[in-house]
């Protein structure tokens, strides 16, 4: 019986970790969605200062969330997303229109990919 209790406690900790991790990823996803809308409308106006400010704010939140998100991501994927975000910021600073939009859309898709794996679906199961 003691064995069962210890196992249940360990499982509860694991479930707690999974729930918190999911929350962090969901919050990041929502933040990226809001940023995407803001950045795209600023992009249409060619307001690169606004874009840079928004992305730098997002970068701070990404750095904070990285520790938790990194627990279930390959280091390569994590670095790829981080590099993509930094490159987007640099392209926005020099107003490199085509380079920026390509890099930013890729960053957005990579983050969407994170939440895809957090959800339960037949595709991800198989």
């Amino acid at each position, binding site marked *: 019986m003691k*064995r*069962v209790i*210890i*196992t249940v406690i*360990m499982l509860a900790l694991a479930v707690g970790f999974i729930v918190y991790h999911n929350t962090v990823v969901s919050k990041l996803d929502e933040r990226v969605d809001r940023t995407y809308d803001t950045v795209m409308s600023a992009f249409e106006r060619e307001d690169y200062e606004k874009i840079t400010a928004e992305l730098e704010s997002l970068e701070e939140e990404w750095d904070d969330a990285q520790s938790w998100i990194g*627990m*279930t*991501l390959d*280091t390569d994927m994590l670095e790829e997303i981080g590099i993509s975000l930094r490159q987007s910021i640099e392209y926005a600073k020099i107003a490199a229109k085509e380079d920026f939009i390509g890099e930013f859309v890729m960053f957005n898709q990579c983050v969407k990919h994170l939440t895809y794996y957090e959800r339960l679906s037949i595709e991800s199961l198989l």
Partner: protein
Amino acid sequence: MLITVLRTAIMYALVVLTLRIMGKRQIAELEPSELVVTIIISELAADPIVDPGKPFATAIVSIIILLFFEVLLSFAAYKNINIRSLLYGKPSTFYGDGKINQKEMQNQRYSIGDLLEEIRNSGATSLSEVEYVIMETNGNVSVIQNSRNRPVTPGDLGIKVSVPEISYIIIDNGNLISSNLQRLGKTRGWMMKKLRDEGISKVSQVFYMGADKSGDTVIIKKEK
């Protein structure tokens, strides 16, 4: 490299804890489901050690979930005979009452050559010396020799023998195991007297001391 060292230490502790919680069985006596779980756990633990780029938490969560299911199912099997049959199956009698159960042997894909091999391993030479041959749920085959061929026991000869006493470890490599001393109903003073009789003055000088309830002791001094 430091990451690898740290991950190895953490995974080692987790796997030892997991196997400890799963229970005391030797590898050879594991049920098939337990063996599968043990192998999966070792694979899960090795992955993030070998590749520091792989996420650590995923392996830990997977190991905990496997542990949970294993403990839960083994607890359910302990409480419920139907679940036990479903998970572990039932023993298969290949030979009994003088007859070979060919259907059961076919079900288990066990040939007559395999059967005779197990009989020889048990010390018998032919089926005529054996009463039962049973394949247990963990895959081990038990051979029960018939009474004409099994070794003679003192009971067969009408000889009275004393009940064997279990020997308990009192001192293990310089460490006193007080609980065993209490179990034997002996005191520390008794123990020290026994040691002094062997020319030993301290517990730390002893490699092994064992004793049983009748007071028989074995003392081995540490080599210098």
